[in-house]
């Protein structure tokens, strides 16, 4: 059994014609991407640990863009350049959209869906601005101990 498998792995697609075609997801990256697009944030991070190919794909910002606007009407095209300038969709999602959604989700107001992303974006922008301050300043005390405006979104750590 093992021998058969190893032989099949060595063979290229062309020589496989006579045998039963074996479907290997990594050969079909477009399908893989479509599947990954359906995942939620946590699963996407887990998927990034599967193999190098999945990791590369999962890092692709467009997957995270999808996550951000999943249940929301598609945003105007100008949003993308702004988000990319401020740090990218993955950062926006993990830093802002996800905690914002989970906290507001407890209140369950359907009308807020689109505004959640907008609010997340504003908070994301303030955070980018604060990060700018940390890297630019010379000798200012605020460098490392500067409070992050997104800290209130972090869950408290139970020590």
């Amino acid at each position: 059994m093992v021998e058969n498998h190893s032989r099949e792995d060595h063979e290229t697609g062309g020589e496989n014609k006579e045998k039963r075609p074996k479907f290997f997801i990594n050969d079909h990256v477009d399908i893989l991407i479509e599947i990954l697009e359906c995942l939620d944030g946590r699963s996407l991070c887990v998927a990034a640990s599967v193999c190098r190919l999945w990791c590369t794909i999962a890092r692709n910002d467009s997957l995270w863009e999808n996550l951000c606007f999943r249940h929301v009407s598609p945003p105007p095209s100008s949003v993308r350049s702004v988000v990319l300038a401020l740090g990218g969709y993955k950062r926006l999602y993990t830093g802002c959209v996800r905690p914002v959604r989970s906290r507001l989700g407890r209140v369950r107001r359907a009308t807020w869906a689109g505004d959640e992303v907008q609010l997340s974006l504003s908070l994301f922008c303030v955070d980018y601005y604060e990060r700018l301050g940390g890297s630019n300043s010379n000798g200012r005390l605020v460098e490392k101990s500067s409070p992050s405006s997104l800290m209130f979104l972090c869950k408290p750590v139970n020590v």
Partner: protein
Amino acid sequence: MLRYDSTSSSAGSSSGSLSSSSSSSKPPQQDIDGLLAGAGYKVRSSELRQVAQRLERLETAMGNSPADFSQLASDAILYNPSDLACWVDSLLTEFAEPPPTCSSDFIVDPVNNQTVVNSAWTTAEPHTPQVHQNITYDEQQSLDNQLTVVTAMEEDSGIRLVHMLMTCAECVQSGDLSLATSLIGDMQGLLTHVNTVCGIGKVAGHFIDALSRRIFQGMGGGSVNGGSAFENEILHHHFYEACPYLKFAHFTANQAILEAFDGHDCVHVVDFNLMHGLQWPALIQALALRPGGPPLLRLTGIGPPSPDGRDSLREIGLRLAELARSVNVRFAFRGVAASRLEDVKPWMLQVNPKEAVAVNSIMQLHRLLGSEQTRNSPIDTVLSWIRGLNPKIMTVVEQEANHNQPGFLDRFTEALYYYSTMFDSLEACRVQPEKALAEIYIQREIGNVVSCEGSARVERHEPLAKWRRRLSGAGFRALHLGSNAFKQASMLLTLFSAEGYSVEENEGCLSLGWHSRPLIAASAWQAVPAWDNRMSSS
């Protein structure tokens, strides 16, 4: 150390030893319960219930720690038992904490009360069986019981602190500084019995400091505003992070400014207090994403001059410019350094007649108010040149409190309630370094409200109703903030997952409060055209 059964004849009259912690300078003979007086006790009728509760607590405490019991019998200072309230308190203190700092004001009572004391102790004993079991548990349990005694007493001490604070403020107002000074001493003593990490103890501590500064250092209060501009910025930043008030202010003002700028291609924002410029990234981003593309944005930031040659205004401007460049918004910044807002003249702002102007004042206008209502007070001057700029919108955010009353006691009372509420809301903050520095920020405000007068007192908060009258009288009309601002504010508050914050809408103005006590109010205004000429406005 004197024993209660000593034959010392220096007993003196007990009325002279009436504990100064009972905060009253009234003669002690009033209002004494007649029945107990017949038995030899002096207890005020109004305090009967409290004394009974404290006796109960004392009984529990004695039961919990019989070891202290015997120590108490042999080598404690006992106080005048006929003043039952103080006597019980002092014993309770000894059970809750070791008694190192006993005031020597208490005078030993003569022998005739000895039997009374004994019976009080003997009646306590039959009740110990149920609490005896606690002693066999591990230490933690008995510690908890002691703690419950302490917290019950704390509540009481907390209430006493508040009463003493009021009394002290009244003395200050009437000029009775000697009594005020002694009250300060007593309050500081009482503070040791109260948890100063949270709750009333913490706020009281700050108010006691402010009062003592007022009494001992006069009303210049220079030390309160002694913080450098740099320090103030850091404290302000931490206050921004620790609680939602400033975030609410920024986001609400930005929403109003964004809506006012709709359709304009050249816009100019004048910020009365730039600090770290934390308000503006969100506006820049919102302008970048507005349908139709971003306008040319000019920002003029007013701030105090930096002492050590650093141009902090320019640094903030550079940071904002970099952000604007990243998101493709044409941006220009100008800094105006002025130590007081009234020193700013409109020509410094270089407003272009073709641009839409927004004036943004987050907790700055109240600094212009003086206590005297003169004709050309700074507030009138500033409001009139703001009108002269003809801004599309003026966003005003102010503390919702009445801290500019002429009477000191009224001001003090209002400040005590306002800042207690604010500290309560701060309890909900979990992020530790921010919280401590945010508290220092608030503490400075308290110090200014309480211990300064004249031009040194800049924290002259007035409630929204007063601002409405003032601004309407100066030629402005209110703009409604709109449902988008309300929705955004509600969402923002929900993110601060502390139950207790509430947003309210009040005739087009939004206010953020803690448990329905509004603490900060945001409003938007527009200049009424042709006000001075009394022509019919368009």
